[in-house]
């Protein structure tokens, strides 16, 4: 399969071209004994408790500083498993490709998926390809599902969160949001911000090894840190108070936010985790996170508080206080 080829409708027809695409392209890249069987479903080992998740990736553009849709599709699903305390094991991938898509970028995307899967220690064990007509899909969509094994001892749940628990964030917010935004049309300035897209299972296993008093974790993807924290407190008998000064925001991200009137708390992240942990273990978890490359900028950013219930509040840089609401709609650039 050559790089200058294009995807044709018949690559998805189930005939010879489909067969070739699977054997010579996908199988070659994702090679492992389970996938090699090419049976209608993959047979995999199990565990008493499984975590199971799915997500579809429709990011535009397909390539952005620090990543691409393939890396995102693997890392995103790995992270959804890992934040539940699961060890990610197996991944499926479904491709929906627009007719006429070039093979060369597809190669790069699939290679990127392979590298990310290797880095995360997961196997891509089953997959599917569909080709739709020109303009019936925007270039390429990927769906991944994932299975992870959950250890007997791990019980992560919002129900275990108590007043006084601390909130730890693994690093700077908004990198992915700004990296993707900077590549979209209409921006005529250069931004030196890379997406944080990365599989977090290594970092998270260190968190779980450092303390058995980790209550809950969440990866603040779409909607950003603000939305992730609001999802934790929603309808609960406690609130969260975070400190603006403690939340790491990279210089480039801050600059773009100032310019366009965006709030970094609402920008997407693809390689960050929020950990809720009992206060007595917070320092040791923080230390463990900082030992990992992906957690070197981790900070304790806040505390679970009794009042106001069900709300996230922010202590501002000048010690004022305000609430931090859910993201309502896409942030729109302002007039002046």
């Amino acid at each position, binding site marked *: 399969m050559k790089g200058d080829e294009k995807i044709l409708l018949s690559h998805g027809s189930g005939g010879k071209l489909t067969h070739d695409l699977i054997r010579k392209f996908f199988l070659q890249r994702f090679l492992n004994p389970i996938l090699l069987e090419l049976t209608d479903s993959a047979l995999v080992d199990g565990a008493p408790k499984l975590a199971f998740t799915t997500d579809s990736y429709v990011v535009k553009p397909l390539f952005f500083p620090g990543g691409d849709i393939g890396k995102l599709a693997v890392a995103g699903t790995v992270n959804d498993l890992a934040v539940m305390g699961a060890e990610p094991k197996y991944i499926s991938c479904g491709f929906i490709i627009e007719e006429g898509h070039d093979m060369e970028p597809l190669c790069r995307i699939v290679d990127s998926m392979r590298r990310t899967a290797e880095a995360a220690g997961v196997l891509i064990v089953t997959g599917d390809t569909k080709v739709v007509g020109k303009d019936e899909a925007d270039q390429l969509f990927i769906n991944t599902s994932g299975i992870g094994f959950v250890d007997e001892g791990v019980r992560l749940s919002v129900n275990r969160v108590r007043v006084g628990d601390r909130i730890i964030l693994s690093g700077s917010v908004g990198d992915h949001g700004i990296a993707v935004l900077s590549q979209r049309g*209409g921006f005529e300035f250069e931004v030196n911000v890379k997406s944080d897209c990365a599989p977090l299972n290594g970092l998270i296993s260190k968190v779980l090894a450092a303390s058995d008093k980790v209550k809950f974790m969440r990866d603040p993807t779409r909607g950003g840190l603000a939305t992730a924290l609001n999802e934790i407190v929603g309808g609960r008998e406690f609130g969260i108070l975070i400190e603006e000064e403690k939340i790491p925001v990279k210089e480039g991200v801050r600059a773009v936010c100032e310019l366009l009137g965006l709030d970094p708390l609402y920008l997407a992240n693809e390689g960050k985790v929020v950990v809720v942990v009992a206060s007595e273990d917070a320092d040791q978890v923080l230390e463990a996170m900082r030992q990992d490359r992906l957690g070197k900028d981790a900070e304790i950013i806040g505390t679970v508080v009794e009042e106001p219930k069900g709300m996230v509040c922010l202590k501002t840089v000048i010690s004022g206080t305000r609430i931090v609401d859910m993201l309502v709609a896409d942030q729109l650039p302002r007039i*002046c």
Partner: protein
Amino acid sequence: MKYLDEFRNKAAAKRLASRISSEVGEGEVTLMEVCGTHTMAVHRYGIKGLLPPNIRLLSGPGCPVCVTSNRYIDKAIAYSKQSDVILTTFGDMVKVPGSRSSLAREMSRGADVRIVYSTTDALKIARDNTERKVIFLGVGFETTVPTVATSILEADRMGMKNYFVLSAHKLIPPAMKALLDGGELKIDGFICPGHVSTITGTQVYEFIPRNYRVPCVVAGFEPVDIMQAIYTLVQQITRGIAEVANQYRRAVRKEGNPKAREVIYEVFEPSDSDWRGIGVIPQSGLMIRQRYRKYDAEANIDVEIEPSAENPRCICGAILRGVKEPLECTLFGSLCTPEHPKGACMVSSEGTCAAYYNYGRQMPKKPEG
């Protein structure tokens, strides 16, 4: 970030807060921040919580989207329905409800409405689509107008025939005068808009202390800027002084930016303008001069609109005049939210209601921690 961090300094803010407290004494002091960006900063940084309770901060009519009349929105919507029109606009405008619809709703029905970041983008769209009429929604104050005027000059230089501006540009000082003349409010001091003043200079406010004995301070948008401005106003008030002070010296000069004003008045001339909530204020708007009339959407593209109607329970008007606060509105937070706004003040990121809703709703006096 250099030039910003020093204006977000906690110690400086605290110091100013205690100076304000000891200076203000016991009497009630009502200050108005005219500009929407100030309103947003006040809420975003929790500045009200640092001030003594007898200082009241009111939001003024300085959110460009909020003061745009319903009729203008209705007209923009009507234009967007014409198949040979591409409507270009800054993002804030698309969700503003008109009498019967919004641009966002029309977009979902197929209207070609494009969000742009500058008039340069709008001109480019016009160049790339010469067979269609490209209308730019000219909304904004003195700060925004120079770029719109420049786009018209540029279109003229290139001989473009399909670029038009629907102008609802407004001027801030006449609105401040209207509020003072209206007499509904007792305003003890104005925090004057920083961005607008970069163009107008500080001299345009001088009639306010002279004729009304009300002090004015031009302020920047960081928390320490605003605290400093409040401190200066309180000092003037307690000492019986009324003058225009410039806190935002790093950006604003007394004479402003004469070049930008030259460009504005090359293309536009003052006209009466309809402000949502306030009504028509003489000489408070800008219309395109005869010489550039061929770029005026209203003068060149016919459109019919039905009479405009406001939601009778919406009190955006009173809020824009500073007479009422969002929590006094029966729609606020229940029927009118950022997801389903009924009035313009809830839509714009600089609107008073949006600021209250996003940052201050149900805030207890003292959260713990």
